[in-house]
């Protein structure tokens, strides 16, 4: 098990609207130094990261881990159509802005970070994957890590639903939620414990009145029902608030830290076939 302190959290996310929400306007309201000539996905990453870091002393070598299931899906699709269907040569800035780690670059630049910088994709467990790797990095090397889960909707929204395999009734969403982690911190907002993967998560946590449960979006409906059966604690479900997207576990964990509805949250994530990762957050 890896145990770290959570120094800060920011939960930014919303259910998708028929037209793209103007992220740049939101960013300019909170951040006076928003870079120009970046795409909406990068702006979304900056919006959450800035709010997580605001007012906190980040070490310059703080590691940056960005988990995203779909990355710059909209811009990449536009670039593909531009080049392959319309035969247009890409503009340099269009190409640069869909480099896998461009968002990480601009977050590091905005926050003055010079440590390691990684962008991770692991499907519907992308935030959890980034969190595991960030925690291992801090455990192995010390220091701090800023961990984000960032995904945006691609428009038109009907296409986005088709691509995600979601029906009309599903609430799709987008967001940029972040946790700031550190080793050996006595004064922190919450403590994070990453348990080793297990076959049967219910054998680890039976549930009690003070423990809340959240279920990762990579877990199918049948396994979710099985996990929730006989659970005696609360269920912390933020899907109506954030909508569904690959890295929305970041929103769930950050919201729990910020809102503190209970003492402890156990988040269950699908690690691999038949294996589960338990992520425990304890506040107070």
């Amino acid at each position, binding site marked *: 098990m890896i145990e770290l302190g959570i120094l800060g959290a920011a939960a930014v996310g919303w259910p998708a609207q028929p037209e793209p929400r103007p992220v740049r306007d939101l960013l300019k309201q909170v951040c006076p130094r928003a870079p120009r000539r970046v795409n909406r996905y990068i702006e979304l990453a900056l919006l959450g990261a800035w709010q997580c870091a605001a007012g906190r002393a980040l070490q310059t070598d703080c590691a940056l881990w960005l988990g995203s299931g779909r990355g710059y899906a909209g811009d990449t699709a536009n670039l593909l159509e531009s080049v392959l269907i319309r035969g247009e040569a890409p503009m340099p800035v269009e190409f640069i802005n869909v480099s896998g780690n461009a968002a990480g670059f601009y977050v590091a630049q905005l926050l003055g970070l010079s440590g390691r910088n990684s962008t991770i994709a692991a499907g519907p467990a992308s935030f959890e994957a980034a969190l595991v790797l960030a925690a291992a990095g801090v455990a192995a090397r010390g220091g701090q890590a800023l961990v984000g889960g960032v995904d945006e909707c691609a428009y038109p929204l009907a296409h986005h639903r088709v*691509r995600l395999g979601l029906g009309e009734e599903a609430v799709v969403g987008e967001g940029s939620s972040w946790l700031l982690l550190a080793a050996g911190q006595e004064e922190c907002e919450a403590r994070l414990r990453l348990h080793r993967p297990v076959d049967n998560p219910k054998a680890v946590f039976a549930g009690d009145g003070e423990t809340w449960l959240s279920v990762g979006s990579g877990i199918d409906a049948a396994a979710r029902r099985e996990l929730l059966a006989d659970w005696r604690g609360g269920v912390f479900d933020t899907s109506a608030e954030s909508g569904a997207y690959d890295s929305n576990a970041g929103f769930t964990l950050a919201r729990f830290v910020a809102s503190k509805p209970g003492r402890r949250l156990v988040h269950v994530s699908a690690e691999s076939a038949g294996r589960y990762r338990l992520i425990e957050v304890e506040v107070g």
Partner: protein
Amino acid sequence: MTSPLRFLGAGLVCAAGDDPAAVAAKLRAGVPAPVELTLPDLGLGGRFLYYPTAFPAGTERALRLAEAAAADALARSGLSAEQRGRTALFLGSSSMDVASAECWLHDRPQAQAVLFGQLGGGGLAAAVAARLGLGGGSYGFSAACSSAVTALLAAADLVACGEIEHALVVGVETYNQISLQGFNSLMLLSGSGCRPFSACRDGMVLGEGAAACVIGRGDGGWRLLGGANRSDTGNVTRSSSAGMIDTMTEALARAGVAPERIAAVKAHGTGTAANDEAEGQALRAVFGDALPPVSSLKPMLGYTLGASGLLELVAWMACVDAGFLPPTPGFGAVDPDAGISPLTAAQPAGAGAYLLNCFGFGGNNTALVVDRD
């Protein structure tokens, strides 16, 4: 005291071949061998790519390249089926499955690209893990040209802290028009060949391939002594010499290796004006007057973008295993701003550790320190 992390098995598929020893033999000869691209018309006459001929173009090209290299690495590692079931996969790529999306669109010109379901996910890593029976989780890394080396360092941390016993690290890059035309738009492609550190260099030659290695605890062979990954946020497309110095210095410090113990440097050496100048200045700052032999493998392997760091590591280890340091073919006159004269002929590999650089867009700088005992 825990034993150091080791490379337990490696494999590669690239323009120079699909067997490490055979690739080493070609690198020893040092004859650049550009292969004219015969895939779809690029409208970029005179530029060349390297590609392995054993795999067809198609929607599974990246998967098949990655699987081939990974299967060889697993076989050479000697991991049992039970150990494989607990092994995690770390896959780094710059373009991931963009080539597949291009093929999908090519066959459906009226479709919207956003409907290509796999675009941007971690599906490629999960698919490789599933094909090889790996059950310890899968992670896709996208850090431009340092993707695979970033994946290697993350895998090493997960093994080091006891979360997993073994990791399979894969780097893969396949031909795709977005990468080719994107780098062309930045005027970074050479029409005449890759000549790292030469005064007459005029750009990079894109390559294609995959590499894989299994890391874990073990006895004998190659060790991963340390490494560093750092952000250089001055310019999104150009790493600075200061950032490179910091990265190499941190890697050496984490490895516990003084610069004078470095037997040779595998440079990033892209053949572009900006990279080679900055890297040359950084190498001279780190090593001073005692600069060890320097070489770049990109004239032979092409610039395989997100796979390059791992592909060049596997090829470099194969060369040293064969007893030599590989040359940098095509080198002309020294560029005084870079100040580096890379090896122009193979020379015997001496004792010591090796520093391997890999820098990418987004200021993603990495350096590794490895040795063999």
